[in-house]
């Protein structure tokens, strides 16, 4: 039911494409150094109101530091962090209209679930009756009504996670910061909670900023993702754009599985380009405007599920095709990954969805096979 309600909103929500839209959280040329180490390097970024924004990257890429600068636990060495037009630099964490959900949940062990959720409200000097009403509302929201009197150590991991969420939402912050919020949960619970989070964010109409190293998590929950590396943002885009149109080898490789094949551009033009691919030993034809010159080094990137595998050459002469030999097969249940060794020695991965319950594989080890993909199946990357 909820999915139907949020569908149209999510589909049309794109303030980043609106030139008149003002960012809600803004990083302006922010640099943060710890001694000799530069955690965040001259970074600028705008996050819009009601957006679910994900900072994605390996550990040490500066994503957590960036979030902690919003919360107020770190101050930028240079640059400004703005929230709703107000410069946050110099404002201590306890005066900022943001709340954070910690990776370790950081529930106060000596307080009950009820007291944990009420803690922030009490700091504001809210009248007692209002606190009671608000805490009860939060407990209902995270479905923990019967657990109000329990201490954190009397709860399961999933329940603790929900208490932490309720506590950080209780004060209705302008921005909710989530630091690897689902890292401690097991896979099944994590996937469930990801959808709950998106649903919750839509219903509350709040701005969420999540930090994660888990690309699936970022893709499930976020409106937009910023992929970071060594203190810089490499690409900011919607999950689909990040996946289908990565702007660099780093992003392509970081998100999902991909075949990367090196080559040189032999022709560029409007609506198409050709790449002399060393890896495949053939010319790759792509339907893409490549902003580089002929002769430049480039890489052809294609996702394994976009490579079709067959025992006979493809009938359509317009598709790209190479031949090779099945080297290895990885059976994952829902899909099988074929590793095909080409004549050049390069290996190309192709994923096939197992739509039937065949135990005998139609294509098996050491079979001579053809790999093919359409002109818009992959992308040419120049960096």
């Amino acid at each position, binding site marked *: 039911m909820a999915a139907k309600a949020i569908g149209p909103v999510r589909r049309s929500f794109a303030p980043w494409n609106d030139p008149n839209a003002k960012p809600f959280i803004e990083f302006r040329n922010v640099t943060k150094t710890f001694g000799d180490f530069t955690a965040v390097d001259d970074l600028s970024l705008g996050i819009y109101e009601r957006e679910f924004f994900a900072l994605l990257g390996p550990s040490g890429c500066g994503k957590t530091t960036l979030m902690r600068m919003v*919360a*107020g*636990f770190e101050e930028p060495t240079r640059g400004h962090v703005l929230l709703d037009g107000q410069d946050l630099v110099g404002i*201590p*964490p*306890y*005066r900022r209209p*943001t*709340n*954070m959900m*910690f*990776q*370790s949940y*950081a*529930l*106060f*062990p*000596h307080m009950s679930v009820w007291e944990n959720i009420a*803690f*922030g409200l009490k*700091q*504001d000097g809210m009248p007692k009756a209002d606190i009671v009403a608000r805490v009860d509302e939060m407990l209902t929201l995270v479905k923990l009504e019967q657990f109000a009197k*329990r*201490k954190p*150590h*009397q*709860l*399961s991991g999933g329940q603790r996670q929900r208490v932490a969420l309720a*506590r*950080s939402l209780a*004060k209705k912050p302008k921005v909710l910061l989530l630091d690897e919020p689902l890292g401690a949960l097991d896979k099944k619970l994590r996937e469930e909670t990801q959808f709950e989070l998106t649903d919750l964010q839509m219903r509350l109409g709040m701005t969420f900023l999540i930090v994660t190293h888990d690309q699936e998590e970022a893709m499930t929950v976020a409106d937009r993702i910023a992929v970071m590396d060594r203190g810089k943002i490499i690409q900011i885009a919607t999950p689909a754009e990040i996946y289908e149109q990565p702007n660099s080898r780093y992003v392509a490789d970081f998100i999902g599985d991909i075949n990367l094949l090196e080559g040189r551009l032999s022709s560029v033009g409007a609506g198409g380009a050709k790449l002399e691919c060393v890896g495949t030993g053939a010319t790759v034809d792509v339907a893409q405007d490549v902003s580089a010159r002929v002769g430049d080094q480039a890489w052809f990137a294609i996702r394994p599920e976009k490579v079709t595998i067959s025992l006979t050459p493809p009938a359509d002469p317009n598709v790209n095709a190479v031949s090779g030999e099945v080297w290895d097969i990885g059976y994952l249940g829902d899909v099988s990954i074929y590793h095909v060794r080409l004549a050049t020695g390069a290996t190309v991965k192709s994923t096939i969805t197992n739509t039937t319950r065949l135990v005998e594989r139609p294509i098996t080890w050491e079979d001579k096979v053809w790999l093919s993909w359409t002109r818009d199946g992959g992308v040419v990357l120049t960096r």
Partner: protein
Amino acid sequence: MRRGPSWFNVTSITLGFAFLYIPIIILVIYSFNESKLVTVWAGFSTKWYVSMLSNQSLLDAAWVTVRIALLTATLATILGTLAALTLVRYGRFHGRTLFSGMVYAPLVMPDVITGLSLLLLFVAIGFDRGFWTVVIAHVTFTMCFVTVVVQSRLVTFDMSLEEAALDLGATPAKTFFAVTLPLILPGVVAGWMLAFTLSLDDLVIASFTTGPGATTLPMKIYSQVRLGVTPEINAVCTVLIAIVTTGVLIASIVTKRREVERQRAERLAIQG
């Protein structure tokens, strides 16, 4: 296969306990001695307890000692906790090594040297020796014990708890009293008790730094022993032992009960 304790374990435990407790047991037994001579048993009597209660100078000394110990423990706990917080929290500030060295120095410093140097200091600045000089001296040498105990508690403290409190709008002071202090309280209480006991039975430093009208119980006992031990001293010591034992027993029962409660709660949680 059931394995009972070996004869070696039994012997070593017996010897160990005997070494520690036989002198105390003898002291307690002889406090009920009828005879005036400490070493000759002449039948059971409680008359030394009665005479102890009418010995005003002994009671005065006991009262002074308790007041000094209470004040010392409280001041040392405050200062020691602050020192521990500084050492654990503020990372690598300028002069940290020097500071931690100076905090821990009294731990290994012989009492005689601490006492003498403090005496020289009080004389040099013309501070009248008495009750307060003993308190200052005791705070000086007990503070480091509090720091050690509290520091060990703070090292395992999850810093994100404090950040969470700040993030939820608590000022740093409020965060300390609402979150940090309750969580390190067991360490702080242990530190307080340690400081209290150390102050209670200190003889050397108190002798150096005391003045007229501030004779502590250990000093009183020591000076009386030099004139000859009477069973009255045994009676005083027995009372002291009783007080300390009761305190330790209560503390351990409370800790044990809490632990049991916590384990029961955790079992409940796992069962759902």
